[in-house]
C-alpha cells in the first residue's frame, strides 16, 4: 500500500499538492476561531487577526477573479509596469554596455560612478521617483528600470569583452566592416548574455513594479495590498501576496519558454548534442 503512494518521479505532482493542502489545512486549523483552543494568543480571534484565515483568503481571491472581477485592471497595470521596466532597462543596459565595452576610455572614466550607483540600494529611490513622476505608472517603471539596468549592463559588458578573439578575427577576415562586426558579432554575443540573465531581469522588473506600487500608487496589485494594510485587512493582504506569487510563477514560466527558444544555439551545460 505504501509502495503505491510513496514519493517517486511519477507521483511527484501529487506529493507537491499534498504539501500545499497540508500547509493550508494547518493554517486553517490554527486560525479558525473556535476550532482549537488559543495556544499563543489571549482569545481565539487573534490568530485570525494576525495571520488571516485560508477560507476567507480564498473567498477574497474568488471575489477578485470571478464575482467582482475587479482585479484584472490591477493585474494589467502591474504587468504593464513590469514589461515596460524590463524593456527600457534592457535597452538602456544594452546600449550603455555596448558603448562602454567597445570604448575603453569611456569605460575607465565611468567605472567608479557605475560602481557607486550599483552599490546604492536603489529601492530607496522609490519615494523620490514618486515625487518626480507622480503616482502613475511612470514612477514604478523608473524604479524597475534602475533595478533591471545594472543586471543587463554588467552582463552585456562582460559579454562583449569576452567575445572570442578567434570568432572576431574570423569575422574580420571574412570582410566584416566595424559596423558589421558590431551588428553580427558583438551584438549577438552580448544579447546571448542578456538572455542568460532573463529570469533575474524579469524578476527584478516585477519587484520594482510591486514595491513602487506599495510605496505610493493608485492602481496595481501592490496598491491593493497597500489599501488592505491600511485597514488591517490581513486576509486581503495575504490574498494579494498569493496572487502576486502565482503571477510571478506564470511570468517566470513564460520567460523560460522564450529563453529556451532564443538560446537553442547554446549547448546544454556539460554536453554537446552529437550526431
Amino acid at each position, binding site marked *: 500500500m505504501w509502495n503505491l503512494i510513496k514519493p517517486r518521479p511519477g507521483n511527484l505532482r501529487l506529493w507537491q499538492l499534498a504539501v500545499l493542502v497540508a500547509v493550508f489545512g494547518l493554517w486553517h486549523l490554527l486560525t479558525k476561531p473556535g476550532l482549537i483552543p488559543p495556544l499563543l494568543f489571549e482569545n481565539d480571534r487573534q490568530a485570525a487577526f494576525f495571520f488571516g484565515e485560508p477560507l476567507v483568503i480564498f473567498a477574497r481571491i474568488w471575489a477578485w477573479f470571478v464575482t467582482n472581477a475587479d482585479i484584472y485592471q490591477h493585474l494589467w497595470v502591474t504587468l504593464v509596469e513590469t514589461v515596460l521596466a524590463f524593456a527600457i532597462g534592457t535597452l538602456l543596459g544594452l546600449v550603455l554596455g555596448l558603448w562602454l565595452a567597445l570604448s575603453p576610455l569611456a569605460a575607465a572614466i565611468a567605472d567608479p560612478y557605475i560602481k557607486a550607483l550599483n552599490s546604492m540600494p536603489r529601492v530607496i529611490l522609490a519615494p523620490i521617483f514618486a515625487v518626480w513622476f507622480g503616482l502613475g505608472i511612470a514612477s514604478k517603471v523608473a524604479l524597475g528600470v534602475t533595478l533591471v539596468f545594472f543586471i543587463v549592463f554588467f552582463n552585456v559588458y562582460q559579454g562583449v569583452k569576452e567575445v572570442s578573439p578567434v570568432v572576431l578575427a574570423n569575422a574580420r577576415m571574412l570582410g*566584416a566592416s566595424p559596423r558589421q562586426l558590431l551588428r553580427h558579432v558583438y551584438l549577438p554575443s552580448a544579447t546571448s548574455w542578456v538572455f542568460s540573465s532573463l529570469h533575474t531581469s524579469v524578476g527584478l522588473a516585477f519587484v520594482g513594479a510591486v514595491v513602487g506600487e506599495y510605496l505610493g500608487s493608485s492602481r496595481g496589485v501592490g496598491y491593493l495590498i497597500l489599501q488592505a494594510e491600511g485597514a488591517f485587512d490581513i486576509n486581503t493582504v495575504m490574498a494579494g501576496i498569493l496572487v502576486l506569487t502565482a503571477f510571478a510563477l506564470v511570468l517566470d514560466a513564460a520567460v523560460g519558454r522564450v529563453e529556451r527558444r532564443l538560446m537553442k544555439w547554446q549547448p546544454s551545460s556539460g554536453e554537446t548534442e552529437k550526431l
Partner: protein
Amino acid sequence: MKTPDTSPTSDALALDAVSCTFVDRNDPSRRYTAVRDVTLSVGAGEFVSVVGPTGCGKSTLLNVAAGLLEPSSGTVQVFGRPLAGINARAGYMFQSDSLMPWRTALSNVMAGLEFRGVADARARAQEWLRRVGLGGFGDRYPHQLSGGMRKRTSLAQTLALDPDIILMDEPFSALDIQTRQLMENEVLALWAGDDDKRRAAPSLSATPSGGASAASGGRQGRKAVLFITHDLDEAIAMSDRVVVLSAGPASRPIGEFIVDLERPRDVAEVRVSPRFIELHQAIWAVLRDEVLKGYQQQLAA
C-alpha cells in the same frame, strides 16, 4: 573587382625581411622577438607548408600574411601590391573553433558573402556546404556538429569567398588522426578542383575576389596556400614546398625543400612511397635539432 594577376613571376604572397617584436604593455623593457628577418614567398597556385618546433612564431607569420598583425619591420606584398590592413584576397582557417555559435552552419558559410554584399549568398553557401559533404546539415548549430563537421563548415566558409590565397593555421591539429586524414584529402581535392569526380561539376560564375571558382584542373585555377603545421608527415604529403622555421625566439627560415611527389596524392598512401621517406629524413634532419632546441628553451624558461 580586381582582375587576378596572371603574370607567372608575381608571387601571391611575398614576405620580405619581416620581423615581429612584441612589447609587454605594462613593462616596456620586456620584449619578445617572435620572428626576425623572415623572407618567404608563396607563388600563385603553390601549396607551401611551414613547419617548425612549437612556439617558433609560425602563427605570427600567418597573422602578418593575413593582415591581422602588422610587422615591426619588413614588407608584405600581395600579388605585387603592398598589404595595408586585412588581406582581402586571403581566407584564413583558424586552429580553434571560429564559427559563430549563434548562427547555423548555413548561416556561417553565408557570413562572408553577406559581409561583402554578394547577391545569391544563400544559394552559394548551400552549394559549398554540399561540396564539403554537409548538404543536409545547414540548419544545425555549431554545438550540434562534431569537430570534423565544424572544420568542414569552416572550410566551406573560407572557400565560399573564393579567395586567391588560403592561410591555414594547424587547422586539423584538434582532430583525431582518421578525421584528419580525411580532411587533408578533402582539402587537396577542393584545392586542386577535381572534386567533380565525386560530385557535380562546380559552377563557373564570377566570385567576390574576381577569379573564377575552382577550375577543373590547371595551376592558374588553383589557390596559393600557406599551411602551418608541426606535423611533418602532413606537410610533405600535402605541399609543393616545405619551409622549416628555426626555434624561437627570433626564428627565421633555415631550410626549404621542394616536394616533387606526383599529384593527385592520397595523404595516407603517399606516406609509404620511397621518395616521401627520403624527403622526410632530409627535412627531419634539419627539424630535429630545432625541436630539441625549442624544448630546451621551454624547460629552461
